[in-house]
């Protein structure tokens, strides 16, 4: 009964979305106030129906209702509760429902907190948001009904893919979706502004919190995914340039560009049409990601089952959702006049460079992702594009971006003093060169990547700190006055400092992890030991254990250095009971400057076990850096200036953490 109610709620949500998509739009064009005001209750009702449907599906998973087809396919009665719940979005239909849920969350938030938006802009924004809902609700109801029943119902389900049974991955899709579906509302704002024909500083202020919120959650979502790969796949890697990873990375890159270009619209009334274009494209990349994952056009482990009819449907959605706004853009954007001219050497000039580099970086990732498909369709030949391509293109572009990132904040609006900026960065330059020399000294025959990566990482880290110290004039006056200045420095500025610092830390981590990783592999009998980088891993024992829904061989390593015991590691080799698939649970000991990572393989049949250990320098810095970036996003989001007169309140910031 409840699944049918859930299904019915989706139909009602569709009806609400249809009303919300049409009446407010017409009302805004003809100046009929009641029709415009309809957007708010419609958005709230639509949200309520989708929440109901989502809870109904979650209940079916929680109670292992195997009469619902996707529950049978992706759950099992003996699965731990958290993975029953995360199974709700661990499949095509359920994750689509999550997609729509987030779409309506953002619509409802704008409806609730957008009291101070101009009525026309608000009506049009909500109307466009509802059009996207209509598309996706139709997609769900016509091709991918999450509530489809099985008759007769099987007694037991097929279990969630064991690789997905990991706490990091339980949270990864909701975070990621909050991010990339969140950009839908920025898209709606942009299209509404195109219809309005007006883009100004106020518009940029209204859009900014939504953009920040989406960027922050997207950052968190991507990092959770990467963290999962590191923990679960058992070979110490954290990024693979897989098409689907790229699909979430492209909206992040272009969204980062958008975050910065919106600043120029706000402060200088320039770059308007570019910002509108970025707003449309960011969500366009989100849709592209959805298409790549769900159509089966590209082979990837992340992909859901492929089904060409679904692919055609999403492609049509993509074509309409991006094609119509871009056509409108071609018509309207040429008349969006920017404010005054601006000098190339200025804050806005630096932000333009940032945007250019980020846009080209996005293009290289897009090319790398689609090139195999392009080549296959045109010549029939197929290739795979891997890490080396991205290092040679993306990596090379990242270097100047990171160098510039330290300089930009020193530049004033309108007219920047490059010489002054560089003078103040002398300390950063010295530290950066020092770091590069240390990198060469640590390993002189290592890849060029190590000194270069450390150079830009340290440069950005120190440069950002110096900029912060100058901003609050850390060495002038008595402590009370410094404290006062620090307290009154705007939170948005703190946000920037944190986000840039976080990236610097993450870059240093990525460099260390990529350049200095080392590993050792051997067959060990219990009692024997293996050494790596001065650490001794002694295999004490291997014993069989039983988890809730798996059996495992659990090894016990004692790790010591110079005779001092540092850690006990317990890696497992799991065999899930329902799906006969071995998975590895790496055991990781994180230390400030390196991770020790141990994996246990197959027994050799003679009492020995294959053991693999990794020494991963600085890997923890990647997660820590990302965490600082997320903190920066949240700090900036809490800036009062954007709450006053902006459609975001604490509620949205809370949603970001949820």
């Amino acid at each position, binding site marked *: 009964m409840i699944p049918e109610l859930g299904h019915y709620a989706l139909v009602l949500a569709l009806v609400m979305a249809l009303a919300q998509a049409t009446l407010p739009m017409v009302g805004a064009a003809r100046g009929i106030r009641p029709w415009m005001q309809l957007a708010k209750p419609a958005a709230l009702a639509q949200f309520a129906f989708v929440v109901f449907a989502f809870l109904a599906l979650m209940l079916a998973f929680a109670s292992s209702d195997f009469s619902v087809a996707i529950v049978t396919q992706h759950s099992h009665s003996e699965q731990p509760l958290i993975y029953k719940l995360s199974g709700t979005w661990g499949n095509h239909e359920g994750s689509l429902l999550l997609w729509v849920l987030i779409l309506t969350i953002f619509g409802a938030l704008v409806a609730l907190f957008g009291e101070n938006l101009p009525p026309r802009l608000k009506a049009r924004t909500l109307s466009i948001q509802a059009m996207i809902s209509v598309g996706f609700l139709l997609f769900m109801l016509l091709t991918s009904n999450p509530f489809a029943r099985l008759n007769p119902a099987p007694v037991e389900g097929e279990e969630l893919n064991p690789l997905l049974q990991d706490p990091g991955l339980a949270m990864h899709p909701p975070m990621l979706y909050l991010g990339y579906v969140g950009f839908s509302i920025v898209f709606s704002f942009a299209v509404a502004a195109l219809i309005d024909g007006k883009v100004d500083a106020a518009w940029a202020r209204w859009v900014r919190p939504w953009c920040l919120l989406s960027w922050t959650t997207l950052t968190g979502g991507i990092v959770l995914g990467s963290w999962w790969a590191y923990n679960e*796949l*058992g*070979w110490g890697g954290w990024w*693979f340039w*897989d098409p689907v990873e790229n699909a979430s990375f492209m909206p992040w890159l272009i969204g980062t560009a958008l975050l910065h270009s919106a600043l120029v619209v706000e402060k200088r009334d320039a770059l308007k*049409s570019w910002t509108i*274009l970025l707003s*449309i*494209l960011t969500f*366009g990349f989100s849709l592209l990601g959805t*298409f790549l994952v769900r*159509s*089966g*056009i590209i*082979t*990837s*482990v992340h992909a859901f*089952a492929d089904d*060409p009819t679904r*692919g*055609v449907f999403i*492609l049509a959605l*993509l*074509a309409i959702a*991006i*094609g119509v706004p*871009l*056509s409108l*853009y*071609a018509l309207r*954007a*040429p008349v969006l006049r920017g404010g005054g001219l601006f000098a190339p050497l200025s804050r806005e000039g630096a932000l333009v460079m940032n945007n250019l580099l980020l846009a080209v970086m996005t293009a290289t990732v897009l090319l790398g992702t*689609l090139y*195999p*498909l*392009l080549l*296959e*369709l045109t010549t029939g*030949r*197929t*290739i*795979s594009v*891997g890490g080396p391509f991205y290092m040679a293109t993306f990596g090379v572009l990242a270097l100047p971006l990171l160098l510039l990132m330290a300089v930009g904040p020193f530049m004033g609006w309108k007219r920047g003093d490059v010489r002054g900026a560089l003078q103040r960065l002398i300390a950063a330059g010295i530290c950066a060169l020092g770091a590069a020399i240390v990198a060469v000294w640590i390993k002189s025959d290592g890849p060029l990547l190590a000194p270069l990566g450390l150079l830009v990482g340290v440069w950005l880290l120190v440069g950002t700190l110096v900029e912060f110290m100058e901003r609050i004039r850390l060495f002038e006056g008595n402590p009370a006055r410094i404290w006062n200045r620090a307290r009154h420095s705007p939170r948005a500025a703190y946000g920037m400092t944190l986000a840039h610092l976080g990236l610097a830390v993450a870059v240093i981590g990525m460099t260390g992890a990529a350049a200095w990783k080392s590993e050792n*592999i051997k067959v060990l009998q219990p009692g024997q030991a293996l050494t790596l980088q001065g650490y001794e891993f002694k295999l004490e024992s291997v014993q069989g254990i039983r988890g809730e829904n798996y059996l495992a061989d659990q090894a016990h390593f004692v790790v010591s250095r110079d005779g001092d015991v540092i850690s006990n590691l317990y890696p497992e*080799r799991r065999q899930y009971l329902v799906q*006969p*698939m*071995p998975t*590895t649970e790496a055991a990781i000991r994180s230390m400030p400057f390196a991770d020790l990572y141990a*994996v246990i*393989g*197959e027994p050799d049949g003679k009492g020995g076990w*294959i053991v*693999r250990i990794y020494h991963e320098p600085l890997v923890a810095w990647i997660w820590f850096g990302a965490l600082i970036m997320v903190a920066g996003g949240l700090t900036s989001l809490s800036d009062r200036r954007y709450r006053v007169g902006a459609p975001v309140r604490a509620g949205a910031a809370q949603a970001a953490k949820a």
Partner: protein
Amino acid sequence: MRRLIFLLPIAIVAVLVALFWIGLDPKRDKSALPSALVGKPAPAVDLAGLSDGAPRLTLAQFKGQLVAINFFASWCLPCRAEHPLLKQITAEFGVPVIGIAWKDKPEDSRAFLAELGDPYVATGTDQNGRTGIDFGITGVPETFLIGADGTVVYRFAGPLSPDGLREQLAPAIAEAKQ
């Protein structure tokens, strides 16, 4: 002229959509790419064995029986996904599977098999990817069926899935056995 610049985004999107449209053609079966090799003698294989002291891998030693060749690499995530199914090919259909580690460091391939289990009767290393080129593979993983007479019978590009195994590979094996 200025207006043309504003038309650029929509033009690019139109090209992409067209590309995807062709790509979605249901007849384009990614996993069963027609191979020019089907029906022809399999390219010669002569590779160093993967484990220390293993003999060189050649196809001659398998002449007279239906075998599968699976190209894999430790760095390839889809290979990891299809891995449990490889044993099924031998267990369910009685077809031995030969592994070729493609563009992969031997120690990495060994670690990969150590961790996930070794489903192969014999494994060779194709470090420079020459044999992969001879077979015309598009990437890893790919699986070929070689008939008793040494001709290529079937090609499956991409990771095997339970469905792919049941609906595509199994019929091909049944046909080859007749």
